[in-house]
């Protein structure tokens, strides 16, 4: 099982480090990362393996959202199925 973590907001130092640290705390393994900075807007998309999470999905999602709020970023954590179903036949 994998989830997609999306981070959107103003670019700053250490975003990737903090988000991946939080993932590690929950035992979510980062599988793939793509990121881009467009006109100071930072957009990062991480694919993380959530098969052996230390807690439940909701606490990972809530923690990441809270981390985003503290850094002025929008962080969404969503199961990859929603993207697969919507964009692939």
């Amino acid at each position, binding site marked *: 099982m994998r989830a997609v973590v*999306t981070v*959107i907001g103003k670019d700053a130092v250490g975003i990737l480090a903090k988000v991946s640290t939080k993932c590690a705390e929950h035992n979510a393994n980062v599988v793939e990362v793509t990121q881009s900075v467009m006109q100071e807007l930072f*957009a990062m*998309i991480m694919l993380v393996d959530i098969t052996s999470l230390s807690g439940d999905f909701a606490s990972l999602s809530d923690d990441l959202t809270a981390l985003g709020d503290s850094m002025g970023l929008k962080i969404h954590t*969503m199961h990859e*199925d*929603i993207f697969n*179903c*919507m*964009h692939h036949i």
Partner: protein
Amino acid sequence: MINTYDVLETIRMIQEECLDIRTITMGISLLDCIDADISKACEKVYNKITEKAAHLVEVGEQIEKEFGIPIINKRISVTPIAMISAACHCSPVPFAKAMDRAAKAVGVNLIGGYSALVQNGFSAGDKELIESIPEALASTERVCSSVNVGSTKAGINLDACRLMGRIVRECAEKTVDNACFGAAKLVVFCNSVEDNPFMAGAYHGVGMPDCMINVGVSGPGVVRAALTKYPDADITQISDVIKKISYKITRVGQLVGVTASQRLGVPFGIVDLSLAPTPAVGDSVAHILEEIGLESCGTHGTTAALALLNDAVKKGGVMACSRIGGLSGAFIPVSEDAGMIDAAKAGTLSIEKLEAMTAVCSVGLDMIVIPGDTSADTIAAIIADEAAIGMVNTKTTAVRVIPAIGKDVGDELDWGGLFGSGPVMPVRKESPSKFISRGGQIPAPLHSLKN
């Protein structure tokens, strides 16, 4: 492999364009709760609903969190209560109270099925149930009621139309302190469907399994946002854009439905491919029609634009899910749609135009506030007109009008939340009483020589 564009598109649809799952509705059969002793029957009803739906809300919230998509409503529909209460030979109001208690116990916001199907006539229990609707809706909070008065195969039961005209008024009169809200929880149908997940008209048909999950999707805001990118496209291209976006919306409905059914251990029924508006900014069906090119919803061209929208939504959605059903189409509830409210206030949108629109889209005259002095016979005639459109066109139509007791054109009723607010819309003053009081059955229509 992550496609950045796809991921950001999905997030934008949810965050900015109000994409949501409108409802997960659990249908529960109450046929095994029948008992001649009404208190025993009500106890069985309460127990069955609370047992089957014990985890409905919890699972719904879990799925919301995992997929990051709001599921606005978790609801329950049950077997039409007239079938259950017939054996009791007394007022079925205690059933409504048992349903209300069960709905509160499991945490769903509405429960539908305080219903009777009388398109061919009244059987035992039907009249008692219909007569009890005003009291049932006034004395409960979450119970919704519906009555089917006609069908393409049966014709229209004019006696039932007449009766319902009076009942709709009584529902409003009994809840006058609550902005006549009783009438907003009552729908009168022609060709009602057994698997509709949307309120207030949901009930669990007798041909259904013991328990099943149906899902209603939404997303008018997403459709409108997609259309803004094509300001100069011709109407064929507009139809294609709507189909594509409708496919995506429906895929999410299918995913949520399948996941919910697996976790609840209940068979998955259908996805209802509906564009259901809310009063929220950016979640309006009227605004889609305006995006297509109408200065205001309700003007000439509205019926054609709506027909295209309704058809494209279905074409896009059909391939996206395993089974479709329910009411599937674009809803046009006036009080629940910011654009419809504005058009009705400005006088561009009239009841007559809405009636024409219902011939080409999902359901019917929905959430329309009418003057408080509208007679029961006039309401009955509005019901009969709408039922005739459904009967002849082999589609579901419905009437949910709210007589604003003590108010007139220029006033409005405000319920807040998803039900919104609506201006009082004028109705014709000339009497249809003689027609309505004739009673009897309008025979089923011919299905050849179609002109």
